[in-house]
């Protein structure tokens, strides 16, 4: 199981602040594509991704047991 933490606008677009996914091993890019597919209104293009509290690249893999945070940069000040 992969735990996904959602921040900022993703919470509203996906309708939750956390997901538990039963995906097998996949890359960060693939995870984003699957989510985009399952939640068409979510804006995942500019999202930063952390896997287990470490900045992750699109090509990094995500395994069962990992915690993935999807962090859209917010710009207000």
């Amino acid at each position, binding site marked *: 199981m992969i735990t996904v*933490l959602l*921040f*900022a*606008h993703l*919470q509203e677009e996906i309708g939750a*602040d956390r997901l538990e996914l039963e995906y097998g091993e996949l890359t960060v890019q693939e995870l984003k594509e699957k989510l985009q597919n399952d939640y068409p*209104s979510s*804006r995942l*293009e*500019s*999202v*930063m991704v*952390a896997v287990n*509290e*470490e*900045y*992750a*690249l699109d090509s990094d893999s995500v395994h069962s047991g990992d915690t993935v*945070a999807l*962090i*859209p*940069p*917010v*710009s*207000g*000040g």
Partner: protein
Amino acid sequence: MTDRYSRQELFKPIGKHGQQKMEAKHVLILGCGALGSANAEGLARAGIRKLTIIDRDYVEQSNLQRQQLFTEQDWLEQIPKAVAAKTRLQAINSTIKIEAYVLDASYASLEPLLKDVDLVIDATDNFDTRLMMNDLMQKLEKPWIFGSCVGSTGMSYTILPNVTPCLQCILDATPISGATCDSVGIIYPTVQMVVAHQQAEALKLLVEDFQALRTKMVTFDLWNNYYHTMNMERAKKNECPSCGENPTYRYLDYENQTKTEILCGRNTVQIRNKRHVSMVELAKRLTSVGKVKQNDFLVSVEYDSYRVVFFQDGRALIHGTNSIDAAKKIYYQLTG
């Protein structure tokens, strides 16, 4: 020593020695909205030597809910934020030097003000300005502290040239479209939480306790009770155009700067921006703000008494004003 800073000197990692260092430092705060006013108050109270505040805006009624230095009188008199802030800050601490500039931050306007600045605190409301600042700080090799917030979510990260990844590394390849306070709102504790992180990092830098720096990016959500830190080492990119081996500082180039022009007789201002914005994403987002129309070439939205049209080449037309300042403000309220 006076009693004024005694509680700060009693704090062991600062001490009298740290306080002396602090009293020699000059900090520039870019933006004097919610993050800027609270950061300015913190540094004025801490007793740095000199504070420079830059903001293009004046106090409005809707600012009062979260912008710490301002009163109803400032709003009624439409005092520029930098000026209102300076007045209040000098009443708080008359012993520090404060310079207030009412101006739109650009490469040209900022660089001369950064000469003897030790640290910049980010309190701006848009990523155009942040990416320009990022290039400038890499070029001048000075540290700055990124901060941003919206709703109950905020983030902060300390950027040290030659040491940490820069903002460009982190955001590279991603078209930026940050949510803004004008589209999804903001609560005051979110501001305080970002400022607490920025201020703690600022104090560490000012007293030169580099070991204590956070090194991680913090993101939190106060309403959903999240606090997330992210190790950023892997974000560093050798080919980064800002902090890489062959930096080009592209946001300092004239052709990459955001440009504005008044379209004569049309009550319209045009803004040209090289930043790529996804039309699909923009349209999705603007639906929360006002009535949106969209076709293959543009997205248009009705916002207050304005109509704003975004084109795929990065241009935007703000209909309903002849003021460049007003137009930029609306533009960044919508695009972030």
